[in-house]
Structures are given as structure tokens and as C-alpha cells.
């Protein structure tokens, strides 16, 4: 299809080059079609759109897409319809929709947008999906059939039925049949209910729900039966979905807290600037995206090492300049690092901007992984979940299997003894703090895909991080993982029942009570280290 289209475009361009542009445009039927669309009052727009579709013009798809994206405008003086290529700023770049020729920039004042609203856009999506049903790639066909759900109207029934007969891919056939059945149930067709009976698609359920309320006794009864059979399956899916939500929220908590589990848990430094280290990681992602414009995916992947390095460097500076002088004085450390967090926030506000920065989500992280019609896992959160587990595994490896890990454990258990064994305790302190800070930076990279990148990013996570570390048991990485995931799940289980605000409060109260009972958290450290 795409090759076909570019070929025809090329042909059109050639024809235009050969003939005189002026006469070609005068005789172009497309011109009348577009002006007709631009001038149509709201009630006639559908007719004008259909006229464009039925003209069979190869350029129709491009026009309709531009129309759907608000990119079709009229020049106020001449009445000419133009494509808007770039609509940012005060001067817009425009092109001729008939020839595709770039017409340069024109002041926004001179242009009048061809109006569209959601109702028309919905119909347009149906029409565009219909055009795509002829695509050679079955995946494209299936996606467009999926788009047809709930958008079928009387005019589309006949072409869809024809499509159903000639379609050879079973998946696509299923989708088309479902889309048709949804339309038919809406029209009061009882037999179509059976097609919808097993489907989990929200549109199918919407159609059945509507049918169940209808005055037609027979239709209402069979729709109610079909709904009951769906309900059971839905409950299972809903449970799986809630579990996924919980794990996903948990993974965010784990990511935010795991760096703190090193600096606070292992080293015993109360680092209130931990949130700002996360923020630095997130800003690094933004910075990388500025360095690689148009390649958000590559920028994101490069941000992983870059975010780690930036936050680790900041960590080293904080450790050398402040924390090392406050060893063993937790209250002073708390106040000093709180001051650092304010300084870092203000620094970002002054140097970059007090406004949030836009971090683009790469294509492969948007959308969701569809398990079935009722259960789909959002991709960005799936990636973050996986990323959290990888980071955790990596940290475990470092702490358990490397010399650094061994030295860290030795220094934290008995500093004097470790030093007398020839371990350079100061160097270990720096390395450990850098590691914890770097991991916070990694959390920032991941969070930039889920939440806002702004000066306040860190503040939103600092309390949660301490909560997870304390709940899990200070100094225990496994504890942090289990605590994060379980707190996330508890929160998501409570949320539909209690609301977001109350759920958070309940979780906090629960932790307070838990700490009363077990002051050392879920997995208290045992042995002599616990007393030290």
C-alpha cells in the first residue's frame, strides 16, 4: 500500500511537473472537493467527507488525515485550501494539498482553520480504517478492523460484509464480524448477541449493556444472559489487572527507594537530597533528548549510563563537601542534606526553568501489550517494572559478588576493624555513596517516563522512599524489594475501594502500626551489625 501510494504520488508529481501548474490546478477535481469540505456547515461535513472518499482520489487519505489532525486551513484572502505542515509559532509552513508543493511560510493571521470536532473525527477514523482494510499487511488490517469497533454505521455495513467474504485472515475476520455484530445489536438484532457473548471487548459489553436495557424483551433477555457469561471472565481479568497495577506501583517505589537502601540502609546516612538525585537523573533524560532531537528512544537508552554518572558525580560532591564532616551526627546530616535538596531544586529552577520539561515517550514504550480485550498491560510501566528488577539484580550482584560489596559490608559492620585490615574506608564511603546516588539517577531516568520532570519531582518521592526502606528493614536490599512491591500492591488493592487519598493514608497508618510492633522492619538485620 505504502509503495503504491508513494508511486502514485511520484506519478502525480511528474504529471504536475510536465503540465503547466496553473491549468493542472484549475482542472483538478480535488480543488472543488476540498473547497466543498472547507465551506460545509457542520451538518454537511459528513457529506463532503464522503464525497472525497467516493471520488477515489489517491490523495484523499492524505487530505482526510490532515483534516483530522487540524492541518487543513484556508487562506483568508484567496480562499485557497492549504495543508499546514508546521503549526507552531506565529508563522506557519504551508503546502499545496493538490501538488504537495511547499508554499513557504504564512502568518497565522492569514489562515482560517477548517473546523473539525470529535464527532466528525470519530467518523473519520472509521472511514480511514475502512480504507486501511485493503492494506496488504494483515496486521494493519487487523488494527483497522479493531478501530472499526463501535464506529460502524449504516453506510459501512455493505462494504464491510463484502470485506468479510473476501478476507482470508481469521483474526481480521473475527474483528470485522465483531464490529458488525456490535452495530447489529445496536439495531436490535437478537442473533448478533451470540457473536458478542464471548467477547471481552469494552465496546461489545457497552452494546450488550445497552441492549439489556432495551424494550425488546427477547433482546434484553439474551443480552443479559450474554453479560452474565462475560462477567465471570471479567472478574478474573480485573484481579490480574489490579495485581499488575500493584506490582507496577511497587516497582516505582522500589526504584525510588533502592538507592536510599544503600546510602541510608547500608551506610546509615539520612540523605534528604535523595529525591533531588532522582530529579537529576530525570533531567539528564531530558537533556539527552535535547541532544538527540527526533530520536527519543536512543536518547532514553543513552540516558541510563548518563543519568547514573550525573547523579553519582553529584553524590560524590555532596559526600566530599558535606556528609563526610558530619559522620555519626544524624540530626545535622538530616538538616544539611535537606539544605542541599533545596539548593539543588533552586539550581534547576534558575538554570533550566521553573516549568516542567517535556520528556517524550519513545514509540516502543507507548501503548499497551494486549493480552485480551479486557486485559492490556501498559508498556511504559511494563518496561519500568523490568528495569526495576534488573537494577535490583545488578545491585545484589555488586553487594554480594564484588570486592566493593565485600568492603562495603566490612566497613559498615566494623569500621575500625576493616581499616586495620587494610581497607581504605574513606574510599569505600565515597564509592558506596556514589553507587546509591547513581541508582537514584537511574530511578529518575525511569520516572521521567511516568511522571512530570520538574524541580519538585524529588519531593514527591522522598517520603515514599524512606517509608519503603524503613518498612523493609534498614540495611536489607531484599527487604526493600519485598516492601516496595507489597506496599504498591496494598495501595492499589485499597484504591478502588477507598479512593486515592484515603488509600495512601491507610497505608501510612498501617506502616506506623507495623513499626510499633516490629521496629526493625520486615527483615531486621541480625547479628552484631544490628547493634553497631
Amino acid at each position, binding site marked *: 500500500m505504502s509503495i503504491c501510494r508513494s508511486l502514485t504520488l511520484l506519478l502525480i508529481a511528474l504529471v504536475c511537473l510536465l503540465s503547466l501548474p496553473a491549468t493542472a490546478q484549475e482542472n483538478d477535481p480535488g480543488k472543488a472537493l476540498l473547497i466543498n469540505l472547507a465551506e460545509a456547515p457542520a451538518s454537511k461535513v459528513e457529506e463532503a467527507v464522503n464525497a472525497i472518499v467516493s471520488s477515489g482520489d489517491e490523495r484523499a487519505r492524505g487530505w482526510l488525515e490532515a483534516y483530522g*489532525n*487540524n492541518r487543513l486551513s484556508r487562506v483568508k484572502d484567496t480562499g485557497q485550501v492549504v495543508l499546514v505542515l508546521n*503549526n*507552531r*509559532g*506565529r508563522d506557519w509552513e504551508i503546502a499545496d494539498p493538490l501538488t504537495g508543493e511547499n508554499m513557504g511560510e504564512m502568518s*497565522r*493571521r492569514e489562515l482560517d*482553520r477548517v*473546523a*473539525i*470536532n*470529535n*464527532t466528525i*473525527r*470519530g467518523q473519520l*477514523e472509521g472511514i480511514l480504517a475502512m480504507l486501511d482494510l485493503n492494506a496488504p499487511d494483515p496486521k494493519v488490517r487487523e488494527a483497522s478492523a479493531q478501530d472499526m469497533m*463501535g464506529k460502524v454505521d449504516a453506510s459501512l455495513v455493505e462494504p464491510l460484509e463484502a470485506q468479510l467474504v473476501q478476507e482470508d485472515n481469521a483474526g481480521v475476520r473475527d474483528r470485522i464480524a465483531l464490529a458488525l455484530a456490535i452495530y447489529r445489536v445496536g439495531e436490535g438484532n437478537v442473533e448478533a448477541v451470540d457473536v458478542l457473548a464471548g467477547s471481552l471487548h*469494552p*465496546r461489545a*459489553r*457497552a*452494546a*450488550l*449493556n*445497552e*441492549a*439489556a436495557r432495551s424494550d425488546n424483551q427477547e433482546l434484553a433477555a439474551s443480552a443479559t444472559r450474554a453479560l452474565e457469561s462475560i462477567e465471570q471472565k471479567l472478574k478474573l481479568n480485573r484481579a490480574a*489487572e*489490579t495485581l499488575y*497495577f500493584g506490582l507496577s*506501583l511497587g516497582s*516505582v517505589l522500589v526504584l525510588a527507594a533502592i538507592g536510599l537502601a544503600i546510602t541510608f540502609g547500608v551506610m546509615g546516612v539520612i540523605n534528604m537530597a535523595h529525591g533531588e538525585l532522582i530529579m537529576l537523573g530525570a533531567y539528564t533524560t531530558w537533556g539527552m533528548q535535547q541532544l538527540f532531537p527526533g530520536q527519543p528512544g536512543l536518547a532514553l537508552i543513552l540516558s541510563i549510563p548518563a543519568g547514573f554518572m550525573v547523579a553519582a558525580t553529584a553524590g560524590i560532591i555532596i559526600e566530599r563537601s558535606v556528609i563526610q564532616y558530619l559522620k555519626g551526627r544524624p540530626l545535622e546530616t538530616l538538616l544539611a542534606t535537606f539544605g542541599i535538596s533545596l539548593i539543588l531544586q533552586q539550581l534547576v529552577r534558575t538554570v533550566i526553568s*521553573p*516549568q*516542567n520539561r*517535556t*520528556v*517524550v*515517550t519513545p514509540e516502543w514504550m*507507548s*501503548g*499497551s501489550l494486549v493480552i485480551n480485550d479486557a486485559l*492490556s498491560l*501498559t*508498556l*511504559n*510501566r511494563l518496561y519500568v517494572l523490568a528495569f526495576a528488577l534488573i537494577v535490583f539484580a545488578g545491585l545484589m550482584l555488586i553487594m554480594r559478588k564484588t570486592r566493593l560489596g565485600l568492603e562495603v559490608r566490612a566497613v559498615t559492620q566494623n569500621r575500625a576493624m576493616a581499616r586495620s585490615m587494610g581497607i581504605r574506608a574513606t574510599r569505600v564511603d565515597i564509592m558506596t555513596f556514589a553507587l546509591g546516588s547513581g541508582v537514584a539517577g537511574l530511578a529518575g531516568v525511569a520516572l521521567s517516563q*511516568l*511522571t*512530570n520532570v*520538574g524541580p*519538585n519531582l524529588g519531593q*514527591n518521592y522522598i517520603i515514599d522512599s524512606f517509608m519503603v526502606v524503613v518498612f523493609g528493614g534498614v540495611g536489607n536490599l531484599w527487604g526493600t524489594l519485598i516492601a516496595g512491591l507489597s506496599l504498591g500492591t496494598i495501595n*492499589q488493592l485499597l484504591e*478502588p475501594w477507598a*479512593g*486515592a*487519598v484515603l488509600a*495512601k493514608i491507610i497505608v501510612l497508618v498501617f506502616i506506623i502500626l507495623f513499626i510499633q510492633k516490629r521496629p526493625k522492619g520486615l527483615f531486621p538485620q541480625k547479628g552484631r551489625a544490628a547493634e553497631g
Partner: protein
Amino acid sequence: MECGTADAVAPVRFMTNCTLKPKTEPKTQLKKRTHNMSLKKHVKLGLSALALSISFNSVAAEDPIKVGILHSLSGTMAISETVLKDTVEMLIEQQNAKGGVLGRQMEAVVVDPASNWPLFAEKARELLAQEKVDVIFGNWTSVSRKSVLPVVEELNGLLFYPVQYEGEESSENVFYTGAAPNQQAIPAVNYLMNEIGVERWVLAGTDYVYPRTTNKILETYLMDMGVAKEDIMINYTPFGHSDWQNIVSDIKRFGSAGKKTAVVSTINGDANVPFYRELGNQGIAASDIPVVAFSVGEQELSGIDTAPLVGHLAAWNYFMSVDNDANYDFIDQWIEHTGNEQAVTNDPMEAHYIGFNMYVEAVKKAGTTDVDAVKDAIIGVTVPNLTGGYAAMMPNHHITKPVLIGEIQDNGQFSVVWETPSLVAGDAWSDYLPGSRDMIADWRKPMFCGTFNTATGTCGASAGEMAAADE
């Protein structure tokens, strides 16, 4: 500073006053000051007469009109409020270039209440008592306005408040140039109901006073319109909420009941970004379940990747994309003033534009900047807005506005899809809340009351008193 600012006179004169007055004056200073003041006035009169008689730059000799600007320049609200400070400064510059008002120049007095609600009251007091400003433009959040109310009423100041708010208030000293609920929320719901055919409603908001009051009004309104209770879902989230999975999934489930569903969002600030992103990721398109937002404007969109938001709606009284020459001129001036080609304009900026011009007109009409005279003169003043119409100050201190519904576009702008056929006058007291139904505000004599109860025929406490009692 003390002797100079106590009575804002032309620079030359207060210099001499300062030197005349011994710095370490004993306790008799208070008594002496009144004497000193009248003396000053005489000097001032004499001076201006002299200036006039020799026609020597009479403008410079006259006091400037002092305009207080009370917007947070630091803290969480700085994002939104800083641009409003710049807007007022730009308007003052323009007015001065036109020769000022009544032959007097205008002068901005900027203070920073730092997103700290009690500090707003202190700074307002500083502006009115020390700086002796003639008018204040300021505030964003309702809680900051409530904190300032008792002060402006006590010291009889003038405050222009430019942001959409929950209503239920009308003060003698405050002019509400932003939208009341009947100028934003109710028309938006009407649009969804009549044009889109929405039958099922999700009212989602951030957990504080504006969304709670607005949603209460909307719920009553919807029930009055015959919407069943089970077709309304209400949800509140904390400030800066970022985990929307469950709520979006709930909305999706709520929307699959076979009736057209829409979300009316009073979600505030940057919590909107993860919300819309989650909507996009869970596959809810604007054509399935449209979201109409009351707190998302051009300024907020400039920090967002707008791709997942395209097609969702917002209701305001102004959009930067409005196709109108007055608007284009305003944008050109704004870009020139900020020196930033990407600078955006938004609804509260237009509200300040209207409020500022109304104040200027009222001062011209009254022939003085005396607060009571201006309060009297401003009712009925009509100035052009930026959407091609006119805004008039109503007796309840609210103004008339058109209501526009815009769709979010991929360039961070809105395209207008619908607009009220005529202007809507702001309603201080909602008709859809018990207790406020019978209340009216009318600041014309003889009623002169912001809380007049038509059922009992009595005038209640002033807005400032109520705000003070709430604290």
C-alpha cells in the same frame, strides 16, 4: 524609605522632606506626622500649581498611580503567577506610552508572596498601608484570595482577581475577572450533554476547595437535568498524583456501560500529564471518552508532550488560538515584551487585560483614583476583550464572558469547536447549591450588599468576615 513612601509624592520633594525630618525623631513623631502631611499637601498643591502655571512637564510633577502586583514569583505557584506579573507590567508600560491616565503615569509596585497563603495577607497589607497603592492585581489560588480578603476590606483597597474560581463569594473590594462556575463548568457540561450526547459522567478532581465546590454544583445540576445517581462517578486525588492506573481503568469500565461517557476534569496542574498519558496508554481516545478540563491551559500544555492529549477538550473564556486581530496584536506585544518567540498567552492573562482596562476606564469616568469613587464608577464599564466581544462589569463585581470549548491540538494550542451564542454574566452565588440559591450580590446603592438573601430580605456578613471566620 519610611518618609518617602508614607506619602508617595514626586521624587524631588520627598528627598527634601526626608532631609528636613530628623532621622532620630523622638516619640512625638506620630503627632507631628499629621501636621507634616497637611503641610506636604500644601506644598504639593503649590508645586503643582506652579508647575501648571509655567506649563513645565505637569505629568512628571503629578503623583504616579500606584498599581500593586500581588503574584507569587517563587514557590509552587510561580509557574502560573509569574506571567501574570509580567502581563500587568506590560499593560502599565503600554498605558504610560499612551500618556497614562488622567495625565498621570502608572507605576508598578511588585511584591512576592512566595506561594505562601498567610504571606499574601501580609503583603497585601504592606501594599495598601505602606505603599498606599491605588489598586492591586493579584492572587491565583482561592485560598490565597480568602487570606487577602479581610485585609482589602479592612483597608478599603481594590483587588482584581483574574482566575476561574468556585464562586460563592462577592466582596465590595474585589473584582472577579476570571470565570465563575456558570461561565465555565455549566456551559461545558451543556455542550457535552447537547452536542456530544453524553449520558454518563465522571467528575474527577484534585482534592481541594475549587474542585469540591465545582463538582458539588455540577452534581446537583446534572441530577436536576435528570441524570441518575449511578451515572455519576466522583473521584478525588491528591495534588501531584502520578499513579493513575486504577482510576483510568475504573473510568474505562464505567464507560463501557453502553452510554456515552465523558470525564469532567478539575484535576489541577501537572498531575494532568500522567493522567492523560495513562489514558493514551490504556487506549482511551478522545473520540471514545472525551475529557473536558477546567484547569489545563496553554501555559500548562507548554510543559507537556501533547501527542496523547489531542482531541481532548478544555473550557475557557479565551484561547490563544482565537482568530481575532485584537488577540493577534496582544500576542505580538506579549512576545515582544518577553523576548521569547515561544511565549504563550492564556485565559488569566486575558482576565488581567480586561481588568486593567476596566480599571483605567473607571478611573477616567470617576476622574479620580479615590477607591470609593472608582468602585462606584466601574459598575457598567464595558471594555473590549480579546475574543472579539466586550466585557462589562456587573453589579455583583463579576464580568460578562463568552464561553469557549477548545480541542487540544498537537502544537499545544486549542482549536475552538464550540462557543456560547451570547455572553454569559458571572453568577457570584450558584443556583445549584442549597443555601446559595437565594443569595444575590449587588454593589449598587441602595442594596450595596454581597450576600443579600432574597428569601429573608437580609444582608449577611461580608466576604472578608466570612473568610476570617473560616480561619
